Each structure stands twice: as C-alpha cells, then as structure tokens.
C-alpha cells in the first residue's frame, strides 16, 4: 500500500499516459486524412478512436485510468468523384477516410487540456511531499 500522495502521482501519471494515447490516435487520423485505397473500389483508412476506462491498481490501491482499447469509427466514408483515381469504383467515386479535421482539432485541444490538468496534479503532489520533507530540515 502506497501513501496517498504517491498514489495520486501514480493516478495522474496514468492520466498522462491515457491522454498521450489519445493524442497518438488523433495524429494518426490527421496523418491519414487522405489515405484512400490503391485498388479498385477498396476501403480507405478508417478513423481510430480511443476509449477510456477507470481501473483500480490492486498493488497500490490507486484508482487509475486506462486507454488500451482502440476502436474504429463506424461512420460512413466520404465519397469524391475522381474517375482517374486507382481506387475509384465503377461510377467513378473514390472512398476517402471518415476523418473530419475539425473534430480531430477539438479532440486534440481536449486531450491537451486534460494533460495539463494531470501535470498540475503531479506538480502539486510533489510540492506537498517536499513540504513534508522540509519539516525535517528544522529552521
């Protein structure tokens, strides 16, 4: 069993990890915004989503957050008329990834905000620990 302040730092660290996982999914989505298929009528890149889940660390008793489930967005693909494209279907339409840049930007901003909040918790817990250690220094 850890003391509560160390446990809170561990919790915040799991939050940092979860948010960076989310950031990774966002960057993969943005990088693959135009990744259409290469063969006739093939499917393009499908948007990735990260889901969060609360979990308990049995060893320390700290309540953590995990983001290990990456799921695919089931929204329909964008269609664009490009008859010359290698992935175009019979009608001349190309399926493009279901990635919306504005949604990704909003998600990125949100991840940034949560990351900052978790960092703030780590800073404050560290300050509290050093305040307690400073008690030993006397004068």
């Amino acid at each position, binding site marked *: 069993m850890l003391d509560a*302040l160390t446990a809170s*730092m561990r919790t915040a660290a799991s*939050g940092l990890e979860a948010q960076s996982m989310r950031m990774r999914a966002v960057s993969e989505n943005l990088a693959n915004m135009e990744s259409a298929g290469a063969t006739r009528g093939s499917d393009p890149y499908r948007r990735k989503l990260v889901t969060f889940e609360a979990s308990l660390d049995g060893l320390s008793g700290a309540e953590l957050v995990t983001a290990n489930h990456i799921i695919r967005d089931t929204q329909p693909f964008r269609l664009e008329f490009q008859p010359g494209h290698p992935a175009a279907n019979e009608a001349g339409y190309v399926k493009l990834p279901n990635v919306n840049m504005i949604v990704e930007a909003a998600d990125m901003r*949100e991840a940034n905000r949560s990351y900052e*909040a978790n960092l703030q918790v780590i800073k404050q817990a560290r300050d509290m620990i050093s*305040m307690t250690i400073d*008690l030993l220094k*006397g004068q």
Partner: protein
Amino acid sequence: MYLFDLASRHMTWLGGRQAVTAANIANADTPGYRAKAITDFDSVLGQTGLGLSVTAPGHLPLHGETITAIELRPGESWDQAHSGNTVSIESELMKAGQTSRMMSLDTGIARSFHRMLLSSLKA
C-alpha cells in the same frame, strides 16, 4: 503533544483528498465515471479511538480512521457530460490547489511549534 497528532492526521486526510482529486482528473474523460469526494475531516476526527486493538497474530489490522471516497450526488457536481461523467476539471483543480495550501499551512504550524519546543529546550 496533541497538536502534532492533529497536524499529522490532517495531513493524512489531505493526502487522501489529493488522491481522490487525482483519480477524478485522470478519469475526466472516462464515460460514465462519477466524480468522487472525500469524507469531511470532522467525521474522520470523530472516528478516532474507535479502532479495534490487535491482540493476537491472527487479527487483521484494522485502521481506526478510515478515509472513504463517496460519489458526488447529482446536484453537487458543476457539470455533467453527455456520457454521464460528472467530473469538472475546473473544480477539481481548485480543490487540488486548496489541498496544497492547507498542507503548506499544516507544515508551517508544525514547524513553528517544533521551533517553540526547541527554544524551550535550549534556554
């Protein structure tokens, strides 16, 4: 010295409070997560002396004072997301700042009290 005991117990409580705040902030985006709050220091203080004493090796250690986290009631949280998450990062950060300030007050009091004791010894 009662004051040292009080300061140490208050600091234990503050540590628990910070852990609960950290769990809330880490789960600020978890769907369906309900924000938690810690029991008041008053009630933790009231529990002292009620712990069971351990007299045989087979007895499980029971801590006299238990700090428990309880879920916030619907009206108590600042906002609720569509997923049912009731964590508000702003209020949690405010709480974390408050906890840190209280810790600084506690350590300050303990330090000056310690200095008082030392000065009476030196004289």
